[in-house]
C-alpha cells in the first residue's frame, strides 16, 4: 500500500464544479496542438491514430471489393462446366490474388485498423504510443497492396495459390516474377501487421486511463491484445518462409530443393505455423466486436467476462498447436497426427465457451434488434456451422476425404466470412456514428443483412456437397459428366446476391454520410469510453480522459469517478499508467507529425520491389532505410521541461533511484 502512495506522488484528487473544468480555452489549445497540418503535406505527414486507422479501414475495404470482384469472376467461370470465360492461366492468377487479397490485404488490416481506431479511445488516451511507427505501418501496407495489384494488372499476378507451395512456386515451376511479387507483398503486409501489433500492445499496456486495471479492460481491447501477441509470434514465420522462397528464386539457395537437402514439407510447416494462427488473428478481433455489440444491444454486461478472456487467451495458445491439420495428407508419423487431431478439436472448447457466453447474454438481456446485433446473430448461425464442419477437418480420417476439396472452401468461408465479415459489418454499422456523426439507415441495413445472409448460405452451403462429391478446390473448370453443374450454378447465383448486399451497404454509407440522422455522442447508449466524447471525435479524443470505475464505465460513472486533468494542452501529452493496475505513473510527450515514416516506407518499398530483380537492392535499400531512420530519429530539439525545475529534478531523482534498485513496479 505504501508503495502505491509513493507512486502517486503528485497526483491530486479533488472535487471541482463541472463548469470550472470544461474550459473552452483548453479545448482551443488542444485543437491547435493535435490538429494535422492542412494540405497535402499535412495529409502525408499525419500521425493521428484515427486518421491512419481510417485509411487502413478504407483501403482494406477497397481491397475487399476488389477481392470480391475476383470471387465473382471465379463464380462466373465455374457456373457451368467447361466454361471458357477465363483460361487456366488467368483463373489461377485470379484465385491466388483473391486469396492473398482477402487474407493479407483485407482481413488482417481492416481488423487491425479498427483496433488502431478504437483501442486508444477505449483505453482513454489521445494517440497510440508510437504514432510515427503506426503511420509507417500503413504506408508499408499500402505499398504492398499496390505492388500486388500493379503486378496483377501487368499479367504478373501470382498464380500459385495463397500459400504458394513449393516446388510449384519454386524457381523451376514458376518462371517469371509472379511468385516474387507474392513473396515481397507478404513481407510488406507483415511489416505493417507487426508494427501495428507492437503499437497496439504498447498502447494497451501503458496508456490506459487510471482505474482501468487489466481485469477491467473492455473485451474488445482484450481481443486486440491477444491478436497482437499472436501476430508477433506467428507473422515472423511467414516472413521467413516467403523470404526463403524469394531467396531460392533469386540467389539460388536450396531451402526447398529436395535434391540438395532442402525440403518441400519444411515450407508447409513454416507456412502453416503462421497460417493457422492467422485464422485466429482474423477471428479474435471479430469476437471483440461481438462481445461489444452484444453488450450494447442487450443492455447488460456480456455474460462471463473472465470466461471470455480466458477463452481468448486459450485460443491464442492452442491456435499455435494445430497447424499440422493442414498437412494430414503429407507423410507424417501417426502419433503426430493424433496429437494434432486432439489439439485441433480442443480449440472447439474455448470457442464453444465464447458462443455459450454470448447466448447467455442474449438470454439474460433486453434485446434491441438493431442492424449491428442482426449481424452478430447471423455470425453465430454461420460461425457455428463453420466451426462444426471444422471438426470434420480436425479428424485425420475424415480430413483425408475432404481436404483440398470444396468442402474446405465451404468451411473456411463459413468461419472467415461468418466469423469475421459478419461481425465486421456489424461493427461498421455500430461505429459508423462515431466516425461520421451520423446514423446509418436501419432499413437499408436490414436489407443488407438479409441479402448477405441469404446470399452467403446460397453460395457456400452447396460447396459442402461439392466437396463430398469429389470436386477439388482450385480447378478452373470441370467436366459436364461430373454432375457438379447445378450446385455450382446455385453458388454463382448466391454470389450475385452477395454482390447486391455489398452494393446495398455502399449505398447506405453514401446516403447516410450525407443525410443520416445526427448521432450525438452516444447514440446506442453504449458503455465503452469511445462514446464518452463527441462524434466524430476530436483529434485529441478527450478533453479530459475519464477515469473508470468498472468494466462498463459509461454505465457506472458517477460524479465521484474522476476525469484526468493537468495534462499539458500545449504539447502532445498523454498519461502513462502502470501495466497491471493502471496507476498513474508519468506524463509522456508523444511525437507529432512527421514525413519520415512515409520516406522510410518508400525506402523499404524500393528495397523489396527492386529486390525481385537483383540482390543488390538489399544492401543499397538497407543503406537508404538507415538514412531515412536517421532522419526519423534525429531529435529536433531537447524536450521542454514542464513544471518547476526543482520538482522535475526531485521526481526524476526518485525515479532513477527506483530503477537503479530495480524496484520499479510494473
Amino acid at each position, binding site marked *: 500500500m505504501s508503495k502505491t502512495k509513493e507512486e502517486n506522488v503528485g497526483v491530486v484528487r479533488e472535487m471541482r464544479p463541472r463548469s470550472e473544468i470544461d474550459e473552452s480555452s483548453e479545448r482551443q489549445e488542444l485543437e491547435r496542438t493535435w490538429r494535422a497540418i492542412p494540405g497535402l503535406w499535412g495529409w502525408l505527414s499525419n500521425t493521428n491514430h484515427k486518421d491512419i486507422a481510417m485509411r487502413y479501414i478504407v483501403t482494406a475495404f477497397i481491397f475487399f471489393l476488389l477481392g470480391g470482384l475476383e470471387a465473382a469472376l471465379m463464380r462466373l467461370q465455374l457456373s457451368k462446366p467447361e466454361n471458357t470465360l477465363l483460361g487456366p492461366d488467368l483463373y489461377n492468377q485470379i484465385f491466388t490474388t483473391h486469396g492473398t487479397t482477402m487474407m493479407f490485404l483485407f482481413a488482417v488490416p481492416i481488423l487491425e485498423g479498427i483496433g488502431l481506431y478504437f483501442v486508444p479511445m477505449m483505453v482513454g488516451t489521445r494517440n497510440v504510443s508510437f504514432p510515427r511507427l503506426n503511420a509507417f505501418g500503413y504506408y508499408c501496407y499500402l505499398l504492398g497492396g499496390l505492388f500486388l495489384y500493379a503486378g496483377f494488372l501487368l499479367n504478373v499476378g501470382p498464380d500459385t495459390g495463397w500459400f504458394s507451395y513449393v516446388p510449384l512456386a519454386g524457381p523451376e515451376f514458376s518462371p517469371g516474377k509472379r511468385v516474387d511479387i507474392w513473396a515481397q507483398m507478404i513481407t510488406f503486409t507483415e511489416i505493417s501487421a507487426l508494427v501495428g*501489433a507492437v503499437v497496439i500492445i504498447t498502447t494497451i499496456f501503458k496508456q490506459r486511463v487510471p482505474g482501468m486495471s487489466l481485469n477491467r479492460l473492455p473485451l474488445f481491447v482484450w481481443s486486440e491484445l491477444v491478436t497482437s501477441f499472436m501476430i508477433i509470434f506467428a507473422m515472423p514465420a511467414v516472413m521467413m518462409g516467403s523470404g526463403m522462397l524469394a531467396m531460392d528464386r533469386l540467389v539460388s539457395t536450396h531451402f526447398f530443393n529436395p535434391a540438395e537437402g532442402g525440403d518441400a514439407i519444411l515450407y508447409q*510447416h513454416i507456412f502453416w505455423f503462421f497460417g493457422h494462427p492467422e485464422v485466429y488473428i482474423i477471428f479474435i478481433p471479430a469476437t471483440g466486436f461481438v462481445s461489444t455489440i452484444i453488450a450494447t444491444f442487450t443492455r447488460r454486461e456480456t455474460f462471463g467476462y473472465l470466461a471470455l478472456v480466458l477463452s481468448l487467451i486459450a485460443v491464442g495458445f492452442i491456435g499455435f498447436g494445430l497447424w499440422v491439420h493442414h498437412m494430414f495428407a503429407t507423410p507424417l508419423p501417426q502419433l503426430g497426427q493424433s496429437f494434432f487431431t486432439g489439439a485441433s478439436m480442443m480449440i472447439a472448447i474455448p470457442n464453444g465457451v465464447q458462443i455459450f457466453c454470448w447466448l447467455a447474454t442474449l438470454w439474460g438481456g433486453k434485446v434491441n434488434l438493431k442492424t449491428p446485433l442482426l449481424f452478430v446473430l447471423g455470425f453465430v448461425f454461420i460461425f457455428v456451422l463453420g466451426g462444426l464442419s471444422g471438426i470434420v477437418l480436425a479428424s485425420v480420417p475424415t480430413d483425408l476425404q475432404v481436404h483440398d476439396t470444396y468442402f474446405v472452401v465451404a468451411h473456411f468461408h463459413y468461419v472467415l466470412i461468418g466469423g469475421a465479415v459478419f461481425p465486421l459489418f456489424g461493427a461498421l454499422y455500430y461505429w459508423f456514428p462515431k466516425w461520421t456523426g451520423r446514423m446509418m439507415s436501419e432499413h437499408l441495413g436490414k436489407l443488407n443483412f438479409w441479402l448477405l445472409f441469404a446470399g452467403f448460405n446460397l453460395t457456400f452451403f452447396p460447396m459442402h456437397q461439392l466437396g463430398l462429391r469429389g470436386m477439388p478446390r482450385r480447378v478452373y473448370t470441370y467436366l459436364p459428366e461430373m454432375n457438379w453443374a447445378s450446385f455450382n450454378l446455385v453458388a454463382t447465383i448466391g454470389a450475385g446476391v452477395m454482390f447486391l448486399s455489398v452494393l446495398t451497404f455502399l449505398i447506405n454509407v453514401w446516403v447516410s454520410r450525407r443525410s443520416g440522422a445526427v448521432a450525438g455522442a452516444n447514440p446506442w447508449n453504449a458503455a465503452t469510453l469511445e462514446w464518452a466524447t463527441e462524434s466524430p471525435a476530436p483529434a485529441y479524443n478527450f478533453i479530459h480522459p475519464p477515469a473508470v470505475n468498472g468494466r462498463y464505465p459509461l454505465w457506472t460513472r458517477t460524479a465521484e469517478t474522476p476525469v484526468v486533468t493537468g495534462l499539458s494542452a500545449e504539447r502532445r501529452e498523454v498519461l502513462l499508467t502502470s501495466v497491471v493496475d493502471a496507476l498513474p505513473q508519468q506524463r509522456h510527450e508523444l511525437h507529432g507529425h512527421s514525413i519520415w515514416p512515409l520516406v522510410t516506407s518508400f525506402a523499404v518499398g524500393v528495397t523489396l520491389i527492386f529486390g525481385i530483380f537483383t540482390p543488390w537492392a538489399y544492401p543499397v535499400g538497407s543503406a537508404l532505410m538507415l538514412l531515412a531512420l536517421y532522419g526519423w530519429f534525429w531529435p529536433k530539439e531537447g524536450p521542454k521541461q514542464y513544471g518547476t525545475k526543482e520538482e522535475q529534478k526531485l521526481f526524476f531523482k526518485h525515479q532513477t533511484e527506483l530503477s537503479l534498485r530495480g524496484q520499479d513496479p510494473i
Partner: protein
Amino acid sequence: MREEQMVLDVKGLPEHGFDTREPMWWGNLLLLLIETMTFVIAGAAFFYVSQNFNIWPPPRTETYSQLNPLPGLGNPTANLIALIVSASVMIWVDRSARRADKRAIKIGLLICLLLNLGSITLRAFEFMSIHVRWNSNAYGSVLWAILILHLMHLIVETAEAFILSVYTFNRPLDPRHRLDITVLAVYWYWVTIIWIPLYLMIYLGPRFH
C-alpha cells in the same frame, strides 16, 4: 451547472522514467520478441534440414583440399568473446546512463562501438570459416541466412550506438536520451544472448553429432 465533478490532477507527475514505465522500453521488447521468433524459425529450419543429410554437416564441395565438413572454430569463438565483452561493457553504460554519468557513457559507448566493428569484421571471416556457399546445398543456405540475419542486427545496433554517441558528444545529457541508452543496452544484451544458442547450434553442435 454547479454540479461537482471529481478530477484527478496529474500535473505533478514526472515526465521521464526507465524500463517498464516507458513505452519505448516495451516497444523495444516486442520488436526483440519478433526477432527472436525469426531466429527460432531459422533454427527450426536448420534442424529440419539436418534430417535430410546422412553426414552432418555435409562434406564440402568447393575446395577439395579440405574435405573436413566441420566449420572452423577460431573466428566464431573470437567473435563470441567480443560480443560478450561488449555486452558486459554495455551493462556499465546502462548503469552510467541511469546515474547520468556522461563521461562513463562516452567511454563505454566508444568501447562498445569499437568492439562491434571488430565483431562485424570477424563475421566476414566467419562466412569463410563455415566453408560452404549459400548456393551449395540447403545446409549452406540455412547457415548463410542465420549469419546474415544476425549480422544485420549487429550493423543496426552499431549504427544506433553510433548515432547515440554522436548525440552524447554534442548535446547535454537529457532524460529521454538516457532512456534511449538504456533501451539500446537491452537490444545489445539480446544480440549477444541470441547468438549463444546459435553459436552452439552451428559451431559446437556438429562436433558432438
